[in-house]
């Protein structure tokens, strides 16, 4: 589904994009599948491409205006600076010119008209697309300060990391994301996949992405939502269709019940954990805290503040505030023994 083709200001575009890529890749490192640098000029999804297309147009027009007007200013400043002979005299007193003023009203007007038309067209194209009926549906609910992710058709809930299959010409798989908020305003933004869209309470929203390359794409909450707005990261994992099916199958499975960690499970179910978290059927379904059923299939905890490593989990349970100051998971004041058992239990939740 190629909606908008980028205009072909090839040289300028390559140049600028190149600059940005170079600048951005300074710290990119080896894992090129992980798109940590959210470069707007390096899109990997249809709406992001469409946006970049129009972006190039405006950038070019604005650059042109800047150069033309800027040069005129420089010229005027240089050419008409006070010269030695000027002291005793005043220059001719010119009041204005209807023609000239008309010209510099009409020309911007024309430019603006072009911009309006282009904007209208792209806006509608991106915002009101026609989708196949079987497009993947995802619900994302913003919480202070993590993302609840629901796959209604597949029937499971996860958090902070969204999986979607990659799209290709012969197998287009757009993902439609319904956006809602459980508390305050948030905004979903993964620059390389598409523009942002707010998550507002009482105001359901929708956006879509159609990624064309596998990898992990980073994004952020982009609307200030309180203390930990900074640590409300998103990861969108774009899988091959097969990987995606496998992932879905695993998510749909009931939680593992490893007898070796029964102690940890017991603590989990008897301490207050269960008031806020769910593991499978058990526990709070109120969505106060992230669903933990398949915690270990995710890469991170706390919306990006730590990894799903034993160490980080341990530290998290010991004192969430030390990793994410101000977050809404309380410090449960667990003993070291409890901590170890709980961590052992959590690490089995694959």
């Amino acid at each position: 589904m190629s909606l908008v083709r980028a205009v072909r200001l090839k040289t300028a575009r390559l140049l600028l994009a190149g600059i940005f890529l170079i600048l951005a890749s300074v710290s990119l490192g080896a894992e090129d599948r992980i798109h940590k640098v959210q470069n707007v000029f390096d899109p990997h999804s249809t709406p992001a491409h469409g946006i970049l297309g129009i972006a190039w147009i405006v950038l070019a027009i604005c650059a042109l205006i800047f150069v033309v007007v800027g040069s005129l200013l420089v010229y005027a400043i240089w050419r008409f600076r006070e010269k030695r002979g000027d002291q005793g005299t005043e220059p001719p007193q010119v009041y204005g010119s209807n023609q000239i003023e008309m010209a510099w009203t009409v020309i911007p007007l024309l430019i603006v008209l072009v911009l309006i038309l282009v904007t209208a067209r792209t806006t509608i194209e991106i915002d009101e697309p026609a989708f196949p009926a079987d497009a993947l549906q995802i619900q994302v609910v913003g919480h202070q300060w993590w993302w609840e992710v629901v796959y209604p058709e597949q029937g499971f809930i996860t958090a902070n990391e969204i999986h979607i299959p990659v799209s290709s010409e012969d197998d287009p798989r757009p993902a439609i994301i319904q956006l809602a908020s459980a508390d305050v305003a948030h905004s979903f933004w993964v620059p390389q996949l598409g523009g942002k869209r707010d998550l507002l309470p009482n105001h359901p929203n929708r956006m879509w992405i159609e990624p064309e390359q596998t990898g992990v794409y980073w994004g952020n909450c982009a609307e200030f939502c309180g203390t930990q707005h900074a640590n409300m990261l998103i990861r969108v994992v774009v899988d091959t269709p097969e990987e995606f099916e496998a992932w879905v199958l695993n998510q749909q499975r009931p939680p593992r019940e490893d007898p070796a960690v029964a102690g940890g499970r017991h603590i989990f179910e008897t301490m207050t954990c269960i008031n806020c978290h769910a593991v499978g059927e058990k526990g709070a379904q109120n969505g106060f805290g992230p669903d933990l059923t398949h915690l270990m299939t995710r890469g991170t905890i706390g919306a990006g503040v730590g990894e799903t490593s034993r160490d980080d989990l341990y530290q998290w349970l010991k004192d969430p505030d030390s990793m994410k100051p101000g977050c809404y998971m309380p410090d449960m004041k667990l003993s070291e023994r409890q901590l170890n058992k709980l961590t052992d239990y959590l690490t089995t939740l694959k």
Partner: protein
Amino acid sequence: MSTSDSNASQGSIQSTEALQAEAASRSRILEWIMTVDHKRLGIMYILAGLVFFVVAGIMAALIRIQLAVPHNHFLGPEVFNRMFTMHGTSMVFLFGMPTIAGLANYLIPLMVGTRDMAFPRLNAFGFWIFLFGGCLLFYSYLGAPGIYGSGSAPDVGWFAYAPLTSKVFSRGHTVDYWALSILLTGIGSLATAVNIIATVFCLRCKGMTLFRLPLFVWMVLVTAFLMVLALPPLSAAQIMLLLDRFLGAGFFDTQTGGSAVIWQHFFWIFGHPEVYILILPGFAVVSEIIPVFSRKPIFGYPVMVAASIMITFISLGVWAHHMFTIGMTSVGNVFFATSTLLIAIPTGIKIFNWLGTMWGGSLRFEPPMLFCMGFLFQFLAAGLTGVMLAIVPFDWQLSDSYFVVAHFHYVLVGGLLFTVFAAVYYWYPKVTGRMLGGRIGKWHFWLLVVGFNLTFGVQHFLGLLGMPRRIYTYEAGRGWELWNMISTIGVVFQAAAILLFVYNLVHSWYRGKQAGPDPWDAWTLEWATSSPPPSYNFRQLPEVGSRRPLWDLKHPDDPDWYHEE
């Protein structure tokens, strides 16, 4: 009170001696506290504004230090969130607005040739309520638990989006401080606006027809109209917010069915005109300074006036361009994109007319003119990034990113702040009778230009690389480190520039060159009286026959009025 103040002109036959004796017994400080003189109020406004600027500027410096490197532990999240909220709020409401009010207060009666503002007492009231409101806002910092547990500084951003501001999500009184103090300063601004309008309409000296008003007066007048129309919506919204928080009303309470979006509408119905309230006086300053330092009249005066009026009207209808990401209908999006883009036309006209004024002139690069030149380039860049933001799909990427931060600092610092400095350098001799040091002025200018562009130029890149605004920390390896570091380094230059400026202000007060009434060889009425002007401004109220009364005075053989019609 509007009725009674006007009786000023009716004259009372009180015992003069008694009054004079009373006056003599007043101390210097009391004199300033009791003053209703527009010039003194103007000075106090500007000084208070500059103090708040330095305070909020130091906050900005702290913000930048926190962001200089990834994973910094200099400021915690709470402190950081308070910091940018207070920085934004005080820059806009406690630096921008009062400084503008100060300039308007000081200059308008002089420029239209009268003795005082139309409502002198209301004017004093406006100043004090602004000052007390500002103090209340900063008092919130002291009140960590505060007396009687009165909360702490607001931490919800300068536009305080609902429902983050509701009682559930913002406990304590942080939001109340924000709403109450800004409500108070709003009253002050309204008082100023009414005063400006009444003064311009009712107290012009003889011959000063509307089409002979200096452009400064025109643009400030237009600003005053914008204030009158745009500030009450903010007050209304704040009153609703307070009702929500104190009496449990549900305007912005999403849990009882209230809307999260309507606050955004109300805020930006105020908020967008507000940014034009902030920049139009900047335009006003530039429109006075460029002609004088080009030695030519302003190019296309009627068109400049028309463009200002057009900006006023259009800017009332563009607010939702701050809300392109809330999921409006396409019709809504396109409508607001259209109106927003249309503003580029009258604004462009202004830029071109300033260019036309310089064209063929004889430009003198004194500090006021330097700052205006800086303004021209920086505002041009800022306006063009504004145009990019107005392109709805592009804004879906740029909104709430550092690109927006860059955009609005280019207008607010590169535009407003630069013009404020231009104004200070230009009118300081009038206010104090002494010139500001020119050498230091040039240093000030160049340091600020370099620092400012370093700090905010690179923030465009940060935005394009996906850095959201209002984050107190970020992880390494996302391509932001270098730019953030450069951005922070820029602040060092800016701070040095501001320190030089403060030094210049103080030093020149005692040591500056004597200015005389008309140091710049200018054309408007404020230069037709002594520096500083006497409390009654003019011995005799002047009478004018053209837009450049002092030109007529200086070239009696060849006055302007013949040509202007």
